[in-house]
């Protein structure tokens, strides 16, 4: 047995040194200025026109989707929605830096990531309407997306649970010898959960190739960041876990893209976690159930609206001569139409047949679930009007 020495890294001092806030200053990577011009001393990541436009168009897509779905919720067509507005650069920019083989484990505000992976409007609508075409079979509330073929893990509402899970997933990828990593998204609020601590510490100790991507958007529902933590954001915790950490301007898609590319490279090459803290702002209400006027000022929101990540990237693209304003307008218009059309079409798709209620609890339904289903079907058949969503398609065979 080799001797262990947990003091080997420690230096001795003879007067008490208090380690405290301000001791290190964690800078925030920003490549594009507010007007879209690169900072003079900044080196932009290599990016071709096609990728840049795909990123831009995805941002626009998500912005439009959010607007439409909030409207649909107001009209009572869907029960719930939760917007990404203001955080498109964080979600799309990080997605663009990944490979399709990488697993995405997200919190719930990352539809930009999902759209970039190729989730279609029809898929979004199916999920939002909880219908039978939805692979998750309509079992969860709107916005709990999941798509196995896109390596996008089905979202779960309990906050923070995906963090240690991502460490485990990444460990499995490593053990299976895959050239792939896991990215795990979460908010600065969720980072207060015990699971955050467990997940980051385990990833560091067990050398898991995972990117922890924290969207620090200033709020957890009504709770401002200053009532969430007293340290220097989430980035300052990385040091405590011995995790390489990058803080980035979450409204600067070029910075997010560059940081995530670098993080992915490190995670794969060194088999280790990397923490990214993206500083951004939740421009929308927390969700359609929330009204932010109860806890923050319009003024504050306005200041952030001026930092709109889409506008900043648009300016840069214009400077490259890559953005055709007419095409952009057309794309936005077309997305609006597409969302509307799909929404109208999809809201007529029925929910799953009642037989699905007992599927996927176990790999196959045990006898007691079969019995419960039999009784339920008999009951629905007796009172078809009371269960209109399913009674029309009862198969008592």
């Amino acid at each position, binding site marked *: 047995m080799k001797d262990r020495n947990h003091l080997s890294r420690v230096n001795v001092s003879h007067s008490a040194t208090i380690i405290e806030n301000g001791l290190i200053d964690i800078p925030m990577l920003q490549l594009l200025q507010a007007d879209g011009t690169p900072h003079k001393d900044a080196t932009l990541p290599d990016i071709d026109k096609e990728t840049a436009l795909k990123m831009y168009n995805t941002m626009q897509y998500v912005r439009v989707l959010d607007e439409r779905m909030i409207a649909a919720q107001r009209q009572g067509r869907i029960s719930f929605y939760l917007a990404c507005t203001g955080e498109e650069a964080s979600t799309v920019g990080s997605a663009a830096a990944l490979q399709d083989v990488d697993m995405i484990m997200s919190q719930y505000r990352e539809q930009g990531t999902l759209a970039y992976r190729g989730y279609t409007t029809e898929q979004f609508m199916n999920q939002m309407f909880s*219908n039978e075409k939805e692979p998750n079979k*309509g079992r969860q*509330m709107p916005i709990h997306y999941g798509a196995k073929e896109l390596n996008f893990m089905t979202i779960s509402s*309990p906050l923070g649970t995906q963090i240690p899970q991502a460490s485990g997933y990444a460990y499995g990828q490593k053990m299976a010898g895959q050239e792939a990593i896991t990215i795990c998204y979460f908010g600065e609020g*969720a980072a207060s959960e015990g699971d955050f601590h467990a997940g980051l510490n385990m990833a560091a100790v067990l050398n898991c190739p995972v990117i922890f991507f924290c969207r620090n958007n200033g709020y957890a529902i*009504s709770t401002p960041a200053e009532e969430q933590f007293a340290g220097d954001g989430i980035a300052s915790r990385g040091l405590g876990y011995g995790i390489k950490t990058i803080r980035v301007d979450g409204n600067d898609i070029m910075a997010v893209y560059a940081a995530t590319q670098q993080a992915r490279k490190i995670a794969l090459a060194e088999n280790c976690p990397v923490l990214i803290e993206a500083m951004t702002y939740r421009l929308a209400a927390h969700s359609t159930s929330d009204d932010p006027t109860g806890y923050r000022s319009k003024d504050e929101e306005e200041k952030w609206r001026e930092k709109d990540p889409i506008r900043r990237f648009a300016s840069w693209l214009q400077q490259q001569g890559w953005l055709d304003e007419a095409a952009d307008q057309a794309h936005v218009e077309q997305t609006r139409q597409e969302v509307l059309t799909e929404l109208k079409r999809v809201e007529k798709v029925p929910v799953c047949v009642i037989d699905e209620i007992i599927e996927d609890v176990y790999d196959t339904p045990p006898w007691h679930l079969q019995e*419960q289903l039999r009784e339920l079907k008999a009951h*629905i058949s007796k009172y078809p009007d*009371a269960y209109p969503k399913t009674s029309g398609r009862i198969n008592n065979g």
Partner: protein
Amino acid sequence: MAKMNLLQAINNALITAMTDDERVMVFGEDVGHFGGVFRATSNLQEKFGRGRCFNTPLTEQGIIGFANGLASQGSVPVAEIQFGDYIFPAFDQIVNETAKWRYRSGGQFSCGTLTIRTPYGGGIAGGHYHSQSPEAYFAHTPGLKIVIPRNPYQAKGLLLASIRDDNPVLFMEPKRLYRASVGEVPEEDYELPLGKAEVVSEGSDITLLAWGAQMEIIEKAAEMAQNDGISCEIIDLRSILPWDVETVCASVMKTGRLLINHEAPLTGGFASEVAATVQERCFLHLESPITRVCGLDTPYPLAHEKEYMPDHLKTYEAIKRCVNF
């Protein structure tokens, strides 16, 4: 008396308790300035200051750990868990700490002053993680009390009693009644007893037992049954732990039949405890098997919520099966 909905009754009870005893402190996620996502703690911070009503960081295990320490110090914490579905990260603090604190210290220390409030239950299109009814998970834990009101009047009286009871209480609020249930609530201070069921209406053919939001369901089913000439005795259990075996058994001795309804899945739900106890104590009086009308043994599904629920129709059918056994 004033007309209040269930949320207003809760808010009123909190104001009453905080006015009465300055050791009372209310905290949890978003409960401070904003007054909670359901607004149950509205205006408390304004009225009583940030020291006594405050936001916590987003950590349920931390909220209850903190509350346990605060209670053991002699303060009177009323901690909110935003949804019953999110109480599980605090399971260890509740089951291993809160509940055992007094026993393990031989009564030297305790968390007796602690009250944990949490909304529970379905029927609001909340799916998997905004619909669960976790009472049975806690009912296996000596040292805890579990209390569930069915309307605003009960809510105020039971919450005040819970806060002042010298035992830790898990106070579960049926969230689909938050705004739907409206009734007269005395403006003055009053308490309703813990550990006591309430016979809501008398009957002779079968006893129907439920708690919280399901009370409406069994009342509706009882009405339907009455049209068939079946007379139902309706009991609101109100306290899940310790529960009122005496009242329930007295009723079953009289009616000879028992139906229990709860939203949580059947297997291992609290109806099983009631059935097990009642069959033992009322064996010779039972004229038909004790029947449980409960949620299915699946997670709580969104699209099939209506089908999943142990509603009045399922209850009505079960009443008939019981009576015609």
